[in-house]
């Protein structure tokens, strides 16, 4: 049981500065997820914690030890790889036992730990098989089993579910969460899938180009994104962004552009005042849009033309045009619209997001 501290962590390859000034405190027993687009430095960060990559600058502490100069085996971590990295010539049992064998555990203890782990993961019947005789999901379980028999201080996962099909991925996601609740071991989990990040993480770290963009609990990232990148990355379908001008009319602030005119709600008016006469980016999540009724105030509604209708059963996604802007709305499955029809949409004023055009920071 241990916390992990990363202080001013940097990694430079010959030409790539892969990880930049990462500061992160992973608390004891916490399940933290690093998420971001491919190439943003998640794996590199994780591998520096594991000891598989040299640290260019900065410091990593696991528990109360600085581990910069410790080899992987002395860091008391266990890692699950994307391609499972099972030893193909060993049985499942030997795969799981290997780390303990190398550490000279007595045979009986090894057998007990492997047995326990196999039971937790439901793979008792597979112990005599070789990896190639297993399905993808079973291999994944063995890889997890190999990690948990060691009783490490920290689990490291590098995209462990991305080789599974969609259905299995959802199932394993739930199992991993349950497993973490049971073992209460600190875990750092890397994924490019924001849904995985949101569902698994106690806290989520969003990365881009080697920088940390934001650290927070899932719902915090969703409702209070620190910048335009996080706002667009978290949530599916992605947030709609529109370039709008901030204007002053009738004692209130408005944002407007061709085909769209919305009053700035009081919660945002204070901070947006400084942008009077300038342009900002307006962000609206698809789920914060709905079909307007007669009762909706004209201040928070606008006209659109339906472009594409995507019925998903539980909801309908509408691709719409509002003036020059293309946007997506997520509406009730009962809505009946056809392509090319006019549709008036209403929005949730308190859920609007505004971003500085240059810095892209949340306003």
């Amino acid at each position, binding site marked *: 049981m241990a916390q992990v501290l990363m202080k001013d962590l940097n990694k430079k390859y010959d030409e790539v500065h892969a990880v930049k000034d990462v500061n992160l405190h992973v608390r004891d027993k916490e399940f933290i997820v690093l998420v971001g687009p491919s190439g943003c430095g998640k794996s590199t960060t994780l591998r520096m914690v*594991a000891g*598989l990559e040299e640290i260019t600058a900065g410091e990593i502490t696991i528990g109360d030890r600085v581990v910069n100069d410790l080899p992987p085996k002395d860091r008391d971590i266990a*890692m699950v790889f994307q*391609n499972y990295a099972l*030893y193909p*010539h060993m049985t499942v049992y030997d795969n799981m036992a*290997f*780390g303990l064998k*190398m550490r000279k555990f007595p045979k009986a203890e090894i057998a007990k730990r492997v047995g326990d782990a196999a039971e937790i993961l439901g793979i008792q019947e597979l112990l005599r098989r070789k990896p190639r005789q297993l399905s993808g999901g079973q291999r994944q379980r063995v890889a997890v089993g190999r990690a948990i028999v060691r009783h490490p201080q920290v689990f490291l996962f590098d995209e462990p579910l991305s080789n599974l099909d969609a259905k299995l991925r959802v199932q394993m996601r739930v199992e991993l969460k349950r497993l973490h609740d049971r073992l209460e071991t600190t875990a750092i989990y890397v994924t490019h899938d924001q849904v995985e990040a949101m569902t698994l993480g106690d806290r989520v770290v969003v990365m881009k180009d080697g920088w940390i963009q934001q650290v927070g609990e899932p719902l915090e990232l969703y409702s209070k994104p620190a910048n335009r990148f996080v706002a667009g990355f978290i949530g599916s379908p992605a947030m709609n962004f529109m370039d709008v001008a901030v204007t002053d009319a009738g004692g209130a602030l408005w944002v407007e552009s061709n085909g769209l005119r919305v009053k700035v709600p009081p919660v945002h008016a204070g901070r947006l005042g400084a942008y009077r006469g300038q342009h900002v980016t307006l962000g609206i999540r698809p789920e914060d849009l709905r079909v307007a009724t007669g009762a909706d105030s004209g201040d928070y509604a606008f006209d659109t033309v339906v472009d594409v209708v995507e019925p998903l059963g539980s909801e309908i996604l509408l691709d719409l045009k509002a003036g020059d802007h293309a946007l997506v709305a997520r509406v009730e499955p009962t809505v009946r619209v056809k392509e090319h029809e006019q549709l008036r949409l209403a929005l949730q004023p308190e859920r609007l997001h505004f971003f500085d055009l240059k810095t892209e920071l949340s306003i």
Partner: protein
Amino acid sequence: MGRVSPDTAAVHAAAPARVTPARARLLVRLRSRSAVGIVMTLPLILLIVGLVAYPFFYAIYLSLLNKRETAFVGLDNFRFLLTRDTFWLVVQTSFLFTSLAVLWKAILGLTLALVIHTLPPRGQRVWRGLSLIPWVMPLALSSLGWWWIYEPTHSALNWVLVLLGFSPKSWLAEPFWARFSVTLVNIWYGTPFFMITYLAGLKSIPQELYESSAIDGANAAQRLRYVTLPMLKNIIAITLLFSTIVTLATFDIVRVLTRGGPREWTHLFGTYAFELGIASGDVPLGAAVSLFMFPILAVSAFFILRGIRRSTS
């Protein structure tokens, strides 16, 4: 298998609108995958028959004739060989030579491959290229070079030995050292083949296995034992088999360095067959000697291939 595969379907679709009956039959034939396969491999099959099967059966035929090739003598040539001490010496030399040479080629090739594999990519290219030189040089030529090195009075090897305070040796004249010298040249010549094959094998081992074993706590020796060697097992088996075949058939080195001497101590099947068949003019007896290689190779191929099949099924 039951469905028409896309490529044959395309053949079908591309057929002209008016199809004569003969043409239709041809198309039906072509639609069978195995027929196409046989037609396409026919040139290769003919080549193999011409270059391998024909000489093989011709050698069997020859070995059953008398010295002047005028009469059929059954297995007399084989029986005669089994009574000859020289033949048994050749058997012994061939076994010793092949097993020691193959073993050392494999050990040195693996060691070299492991060392080169740890170098940065640019260094790898240079060393890989350099270490291939013995293998790409014409063997008859490099054997001549070695003959100079072994030459007793004026050569480098003895000169170095004397410089280091040892007494010079007549490398190719003493039975033990002659066998040693011949084996050494074969090792020198064949190691690059093992090296390059094992290097390719090493590159195909997923890096993650080493990372995983590093986290698991395996040291370098344990990584070699538990990851590298098991992952290379099949390649090792194949190279051993392949090398056994070509090593047992060694000819140039012995022919150039010793001609089988001193007193037949370095004769292998190939050179002994040549000696009897061509130099002494008893072609059937030479053919009989060379045919003794076949059962030896067949048995070793059987065991090695069985090992591979076991480990992969």
